[in-house]
């Protein structure tokens, strides 16, 4: 008896130690990020929001760039992703679901460099010819590629969440005379909403943090586009700034790049909280209390 107790306590504390290590690592990362970026915020003050990075170390251009690219990516990834997830889980015949699901999961695992390569070689010339752009390297290309990259993940997670809804719910709905689409829209989808919002949050995080593909289809430019909302031009993003300049930066510039990391963190955290709030609203609406 005592031996079993000791073993159980041992396992419990070993797992506690491992979990603590991972929590510690995460907190250490946040702490380090904020600590290293503090000199930038203190020395530059509001200048950090200016659009000139080269001489004024302003991140304003990069912030708008990141937001625009993410918005573009999510405009593609959300409707097609959630729609695709609903189709595969609710509407597709079994043989189609069996073929599509593995393909989509493979696509979700393809490294971002590959998407970047496809973007640079195929998408950029195509955009250049279709929209008569100067070069085709643009935030639009970035939005397309990151949207394509985030799509398989959202489809996959949305499908998994929908499939996880218990059959009783669907069958009960159909039994009272609702059509398949009415069931999906009013019963299954709200029931799976927490999973779908998790997928949405993951999509935001992935799109915002994408570096390699952005560097390949938007380039490492530091001067912002004029005007700022022109998605047919190249523009810096927070990730391309960090990746492009960390190598040769020293002194205040390093702190500014860490500040870019802090901005990324803040934007992701804000969007995650927003997503959580919306999810609670929907759950409240459809589940009662």
């Amino acid at each position, binding site marked *: 008896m005592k031996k079993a107790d000791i073993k159980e306590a041992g396992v419990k504390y070993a797992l506690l130690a491992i979990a603590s290590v991972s929590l510690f690592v995460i907190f250490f990362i946040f702490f380090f990020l904020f600590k290293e970026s503090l000199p930038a915020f203190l020395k530059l003050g509001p200048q950090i929001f200016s659009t000139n990075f080269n001489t004024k170390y302003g991140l304003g251009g990069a912030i708008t760039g990141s937001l625009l690219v993410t918005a573009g990516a999510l405009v593609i990834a959300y409707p097609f992703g959630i729609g695709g997830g609903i189709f595969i889980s609710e509407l597709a015949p079994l043989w189609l679901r069996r073929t599509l699901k593995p393909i989509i999961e493979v696509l979700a695992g393809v490294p971002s460099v590959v998407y970047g390569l496809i973007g640079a070689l195929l998408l950029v010339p195509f955009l250049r010819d279709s929209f008569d752009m*100067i070069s085709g390297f643009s935030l639009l290309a970035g939005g397309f590629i990151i949207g394509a990259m985030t799509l398989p993940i959202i489809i996959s997670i949305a499908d998994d969440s929908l499939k996880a809804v218990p059959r009783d719910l669907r069958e009960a709905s159909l039994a009272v005379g609702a059509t398949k689409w009415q069931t999906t829209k009013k019963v299954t989808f709200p029931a799976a909403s927490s999973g779908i919002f998790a997928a949405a949050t993951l999509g935001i995080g992935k799109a915002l943090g994408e570096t390699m593909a952005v560097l390949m289809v938007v380039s490492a430019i*530091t001067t912002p586009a004029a005007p700022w909302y022109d998605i047919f031009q190249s523009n810096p993003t927070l990730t391309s700034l960090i990746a492009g300049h960390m190598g040769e930066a020293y002194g205040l510039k390093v702190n500014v790049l860490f500040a870019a990391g802090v901005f990324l963190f803040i934007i992701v955290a804000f969007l995650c909280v927003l997503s959580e709030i919306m999810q609670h609203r929907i759950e409240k609406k459809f589940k009662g209390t």
Partner: protein
Amino acid sequence: MNNQKNLAIKKILAPIIVLAFIATIFTGCTGPSVTTIKANGSSTVFPVANKCAENFNKQEANVQVEVGAPPVGSGGGIKLLGEGSVQIADASRPIKQSERDQYPNVDFYETSIAADGVAIIVSPDIYDSGTGVTGLTTAQVRGIYNGTITDWGEVGGPSGTAININERETGSGTRDTFMDAIFDDEDAETQATQSWSSNSDVQNAVAGASNAIGYVGLGYVSNSAPDITLDGVAATEATIIAGTYPISRSLYMYTDGEPTGDIKLFIDYILSTEGQAIVAEEGFIPVQ
């Protein structure tokens, strides 16, 4: 009976697997007296440094040179040398005083390993087009890069075609050399459409477009993106050595203090006939 068999297999197999794991952990340990020298920096110097390192590593058993990939750029290499993460910094421009000041404990010693020029390249369609742009003046290049000239028609190319301007990122030795020669100011602002972090990215971007201009180290000029004359002078070995090509430069390797011991072995290799043959092979100009 089966259970006994399984138990026996487990008793033999388990120790073997454990020993195999332990053995693989120790494969990282190299024998005594093998020193590793790390180099990193300019993407222009990278092909030379890499090839020389490969050959050098084959010849030398006790010294191995590791060239960092992807290269972090001249500025990045000097920074790594200042911090002590590498022993050799490749640079396609001389070190700046501000960089020397940043690392007062490091005595940056300069060794010139090759001569190079920064060639201006254009897309094949621009080069071969009806009127054809086979050469530009410094003033025209400056006008293009600062945005005053926006149409290829203004410099002799197809009119009605916007100019797709490619440059290198800040911190690039190639960029600093180009900006110094064309703008007389390394930190001038440009109206470039794209910035890239390596010579090969610029070359790909210009070759893959129909309206692009860019600048690369001499070793990166190819038929897919032909180079043009600048002020009437083509970028060739002869003009660069003579100094008549406006954008000439040396390629350097920086070390902490004069190279000694193993580092000296590698630098001597690069300066030897074999090393300089590699320099020529990669499209650069051997040190005279």
